[in-house]
Structures are given as structure tokens and as C-alpha cells.
């Protein structure tokens, strides 16, 4: 179908004097212009009536983007392990939740939030290392058994965590310097006396977004620009060859697994500070990272970022404008992506 259409459309476009590429460029420019106007202009009344209020719309977009940052942190670890090493780790959500609890314990006992974040990363990285050595190494290449074993681990872990931390909801308290809201250069309304009302946004969530971007760029650079990254990519494609050229493949994969698990623990502490920590979070974040990775394409850091952005925005905008069916939107995106591009937006066909 698409193969039949494609020559026709490109012929149409070339006869009109612009190439396909230019047409897309123009389209994105238009989208950017509309978005810029939505954010910067003072809304006329009819638009306020349609989209509730500018404050609601802009907040939903901001929340979607910052939530995407959090989803990206969890999913990047998942995509490393699942996509690159073809290891199915369905206990990834449990790693997130355990990280959050450990972060809570350390942060509330020492009084240093950053120490909690560090503990979340380090302890979970160690646990990841243990899991790789004792579980995944024995089940290499056996997807079904990996799936079943990790589901088992996640169920046992969920009950153990319920026994230790009970069902109480915990909130990891952020330090004062991360607290509070900052004024954004966006006018949400103009008062009757002509004074502009600027939007205020929680500072902490902006920090989460910044951290996610830094980690994303770091991971991308590591995979694509360093020697270790090269080894990882080579090991995925042809393990025997890499081993023959004198690299300890097991050590490389153990390190990747540790980083993936550590990122989940890190995300747990960061997410537990932004939202809260309670039983059930493990499944929620496992599902979120599965969807993000499937939409974005397995093994691609850029894909995980795009997937997280789509899912985060869909969730928040859905929550404000059609709360009852908001949850469906996430899965509609997944279905559409699977139908049109089964390997995911940035995935490579294998």
C-alpha cells in the first residue's frame, strides 16, 4: 500500500517545486510557530474556552515534559538491558521501587538528600550486578525462561518490600534549595489593571528534566563515542567475535546491567521525591518503561527519549482534557506505532 503511494506523492511534490524533505521542514516550522504562539501570546477568550485556560494547558505540557524526564530515566536503563543485551528483565520496576525505598531510608536517616540519591544508584547497581551474574548469565539467550524468572523475582520482591516498608505512602523530602516554585517567562493571564501574571512552576521538576537530559546525552555519548560503547555494541552483534578479539564479554555485560539497574534505582529516588513511593509503583513503572521502549525502539537511547516524551505528554494532556479515557491514549500511541513501524520509532529492523 505505502509502496504504491510513495512514488505518486513524491511526484506530486516535485512537480510543485518542493521536495519531500522541504515539505516536512515547512510542516515542523509551522508546528513550532503554533506552539511558540500558544506559549507566548496572551490567549483570546475563545481559546481559553476550548482549552480550559492557558495556565492549565501550559502546565499540562510542562508536566508532560518533566514526567517524560522521569520516564526516560527509568526506561533508559530498561532499553540498555532489554534492547542492547536482549535480556528480558521484567523485574526492572522492582529495582525502581527498591531504589526509592533505599533512597528514603538513607535520606531520612542522614538528612542528606543527595546521599539518598547516591545510595539508590550504588545499591541497585550492585544488586543488578548480582542479578546478572547469578540469574541472567545462566539463562543467556533463553527469553522465555528469563521472562518467567524475572516475573517471579518481581513478585517475591514486591511482597518482601511490602513486609519491610508496609503499605504506607512515603514521600522523600527534598532539600530546601530544590523546593518551591520559580517564575517562568510565560504570561498566563493579564489582570484587569494591566499587570501580567507569570506562570510559576515547581523548581524540582525542572531539575529532574535537566538531570534526565544530561544523563541521556551522557549515555548516548558513551555508547556511540567511547571504546566501552563500541565493545557493548559489538558484543550485541557478535559476541563470539568480540570474545575472540580479547575482550571479556561477561564483564562488559555485567557493567551494562549494573548501569541499567543503577539508573532504575536513581530514578526511584528522584521520582519518589517528585511524586511518592508506595506499593504498586513497581508495576506502574515497568509498564511505563515497556511502552516507552516499544514506542521508541528497543536499544535506542534517542528512541527512549522520544518515546518518553510522547507517553509523558499523552498522559498529562489526557489527564486534563479527557481524564476518563486518558489512559487509553498511551496505548493508542503504542498500537499506532506498532502498526506503522513495528520496530519502534528509532528501532532498527532486525
Amino acid at each position, binding site marked *: 500500500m505505502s509502496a504504491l503511494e510513495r512514488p505518486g506523492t513524491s511526484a506530486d511534490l516535485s512537480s510543485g517545486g518542493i521536495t519531500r524533505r522541504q515539505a516536512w521542514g515547512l510542516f515542523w516550522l509551522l508546528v513550532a510557530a503554533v506552539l511558540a504562539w500558544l506559549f507566548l501570546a496572551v490567549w483570546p477568550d475563545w481559546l481559553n474556552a476550548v482549552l480550559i485556560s492557558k495556565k492549565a494547558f501550559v502546565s499540562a505540557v510542562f508536566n508532560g515534559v518533566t514526567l517524560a524526564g522521569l520516564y526516560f530515566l527509568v526506561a533508559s536503563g530498561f532499553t540498555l538491558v532489554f534492547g542492547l543485551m536482549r535480556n528480558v528483565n521484567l523485574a526492572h520496576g522492582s529495582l525502581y521501587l527498591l531504589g526509592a525505598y533505599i533512597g528514603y531510608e538513607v535520606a531520612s536517616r542522614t538528612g542528606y538528600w543527595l546521599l539518598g540519591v547516591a545510595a539508590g544508584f550504588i545499591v541497585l547497581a550492585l544488586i543488578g550486578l548480582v542479578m546478572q551474574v547469578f540469574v541472567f548469565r545462566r539463562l543467556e539467550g533463553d527469553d522465555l525462561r528469563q521472562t518467567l524468572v524475572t516475573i517471579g523475582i518481581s513478585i517475591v520482591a514486591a511482597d518482601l518490600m*511490602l513486609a519491610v516498608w*508496609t503499605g*504506607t505512602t512515603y*514521600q522523600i523530602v527534598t532539600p530546601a534549595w530544590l*523546593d518551591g516554585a520559580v517564575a517562568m517567562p510565560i504570561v498566563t493571564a493579564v489582570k484587569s489593571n494591566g499587570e501580567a501574571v507569570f506562570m510559576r512552576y515547581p523548581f524540582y521538576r525542572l531539575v529532574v528534566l535537566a538531570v534526565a537530559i544530561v544523563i541521556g546525552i551522557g549515555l548516548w555519548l558513551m555508547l556511540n563515542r567511547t571504546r566501552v560503547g563500541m565493545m557493548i555494541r559489538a558484543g550485541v552483534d557478535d559476541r563470539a567475535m568480540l570474545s575472540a578479539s580479547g575482550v571479556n564479554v561477561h564483564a562488559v555485560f555485567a557493567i551494562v546491567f549494573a548501569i541499567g539497574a543503577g539508573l532504575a534505582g536513581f530514578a526511584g529516588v528522584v521520582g519518589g521525591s517528585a511524586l511518592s513511593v*508506595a506499593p*504498586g509503583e513497581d508495576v*506502574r513503572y515497568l509498564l511505563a518503561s515497556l511502552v516507552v521502549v516499544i514506542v521508541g525502539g528497543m536499544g535506542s537511547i534517542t528512541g527512549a527519549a522520544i518515546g518518553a516524551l510522547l507517553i509523558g505528554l499523552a498522559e498529562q494532556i489526557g*489527564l486534563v482534557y479527557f481524564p*476518563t479515557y486518558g489512559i487509553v491514549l498511551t496505548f493508542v500511541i503504542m498500537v499506532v506505532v506498532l502498526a506503522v513501524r513495528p520496530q519502534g520509532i528509532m528501532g532498527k529492523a532486525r
Partner: protein
Amino acid sequence: MRIHRRALLALAVATGLTAPSLAFAEDSIKIGLLATFEGPFTVLGEDGERGAMTAIEEVGGTVAGKKIEIVKGSSDASPDSAVRAARKLVEQDGVKVLVGPLSGDEGIAVKDYAKTQPDVTFINGTSAAQDTTLRDPAENFFRFSTDGAQWMAGLGTYAYNEKGYKKVATVAEDYSFPYTQVFGFMAEFCKAGGTVPSKSWVPIGNKDYSSVIAAIPDDVDAIYVALGGADGVNFLTQYQQAGGSAPLIGGSITVDQTVLTSKGKIREVVIGTPSAGPVADTNDAPEWKAFVEAYKKQPNAFPSPSLFAHGYYVDMKATLLALEQVGADVSDGGAKLREALSKLSFDTPTGKVSLDKNRNAIADIYLTEVAEGSDGNLYNKLVKVVPQVNQTLGIPEEEFLKLGVVGRDNPSCP
């Protein structure tokens, strides 16, 4: 057959009288206890269990000489999980008496399941959706805890008259219990002259409320919040983070002990929040104080029992009283037990409880306000008692049914 049964009964009574310490299999009665031991309402379910166990320990673990054997079933607040757990208890474990469930939609689902099991007697836990008993009730489903609209008795009038709120926005979870609560609040509030221009319904288990908070109109006098467990904590924390300034009005489970004891920064926004429900933490009645003492003996108890502990206590207590009356004999398919239950009227730690013709409770409701206790814990301070509230909130039943089924858009007074 008849003689055989009577002989068995006689034997049971005889052994019960002469040798209560000997626990033969026939000398025990199985009671199913269904609550949310997993999912977002885990804390609530655990407290419900503490309440039920308080009632059982009060009678020393035996009823009419028979040892009480509790079989627990766990759900996660979704209706299908509740039915699954109820089926397991009834069809595999063979319980003839079941106490539960905890949450609104679960109650409606279990009520429908009860219709297929006429020989089993179902007594509610704390599920408080209106239509569990009001429309199309099941003959064998009893609710000694009141419903969510009854719990709101007095709050709407108080908010309008005493607090002076004229315009209120609501934020609540999207299922039957919060519909019932919003209905109960608005029934009075709108009648008093207030308006509700905006209602937000959020999915249960939602984490991120910042977009919802941003979408609340700026010109409302207060926000009515009916969210439970972790959802309530998340909303309150994020409302505080977003620098929310409009005062809050709480649903019955939004500012109860399950939320007030959470570890986080909700203190500033909840103090002074009015609410209403079947319990008040600072109730001075000696019956209530005695109940609190008994409750505190349970492991991991809260500083004060939540309405879940209270509801499960009242329903379990009713079950035990009725079982005592019929000699804990359910071999007749529970017919005598159900007759005893429907006639039952007794004094609870929160006043007298009796049932209406739909087997729904008529009981006292407490109007409260959140305050800080001398020990630093947060409590619901008693403001006023609304005596003997019935399911139709004092409105004649005909007229009440005409108000329609509770839902997202009913009632409405923008």
C-alpha cells in the same frame, strides 16, 4: 434429614456448652474476611483488618461456643479482583459468612455476586457506594457501615454557612464511591445556595496531580477533595508544592488517619480542613475511647482508628452478634442468620446502628476539622454530631430516587 440436622445442632450446642476448649472441626465457624491487602489501598485494607480483629478479640475468638476461624481474601480495589477473592473464599474455602469488601466498586460487584450465592451471607466491610444497597439490592448483602453520601451529612451546609464558601471546585477519583461522596456534599451545598463550577475526575492510582491542580479555576473559594490512600497523599503534597492557597474541604477518607499519618509534607495544607464521616478522632464518648484502647492493641495500629477499622469493626461486630443469636448455626443456608441480621440494632462506639428495608445502616455521622494534637500528630477534631442519618439523607425515598443515579454529571450546579 430434619432430625439429623437437629441432632447435629444439639450436639454442637452441647459440646459448645460442656467443652468449649475442645476445638473440633465442627466446633469452628469460618468467616471470610475480604479487604484490599494489595494495590493503592493496602494501608486501608490493613487497618480494616485491625478493626475486624478487634471485634473478634472482644469476644475472645469464639462465638456461641464455636471457635472463629478467619479466612482472608485479598483484592486490589478493582471490582474483578474483589469478585475473584470472594469466589475463592466461598467456592474453595467454603465460607458461609463473608465480611467485606472495602472499596466502592468492589461493593457493587460483590453485591451482584451475592445474588448468585443465596446460601452465603455477605456483610459489607467499608465499601460505601450508594447503589450497593439503594438500587437493585441483594437479599443477602447487609451494610452496617453507612454509605458515602451519608458520611457527608452536615458538611455542605457547614461549608456554606460557617466557612462562607460560595463557589467550590471538586477533585475526586473516577469511580462509584467518590461519585457518592460528591453527591452527598453537593446535595446540601447546592441546596444552601453554593455552586460547583468545575469537577475533575481522575483515574484511581493517579500519581501526578500537578496538571489537575493547574486546571482548577483560580476564582473558587475552596476545593473539595475526595481521594483516598496514596492518591490523597500525592494530591496534598503536590498541592502544597504548587503553593496552593485555596482552602480544602475533605472527603471522608481524604483527611483520615491513613492519610494524616503518611510521611511527607502535607501538614500546612490540611490543618483546618473540614470533613465529615462515620468517625471523629477526638470523640469524647466513653464507648469510643474504649474502642480506641482495644484497637491500639492490634499490631502497627494508627494513633486513632481510621474509618476502615471502624467500618470493619462495626460490620464484624454485627456479624458476631447475629451469629451468637442463632448459635453460630448456618447449616440452614444462613436463613436464620439473615433474619437475625435484618432485625439487629445495637450500640457501636459511634452510637446506635440499625438497618433500613434495603439492609443499609442508619447511624450517627460526625462533622470534623483537622487539628494538630498535643503529641504532634494530626487528628480530626469533632465539631458536631449529626444523629441517625439514613440513606436518603432525610429526604422521602420516592423523591430521593428521582435525583437519579450518582455519576460524573449528577448532581450538577455550576
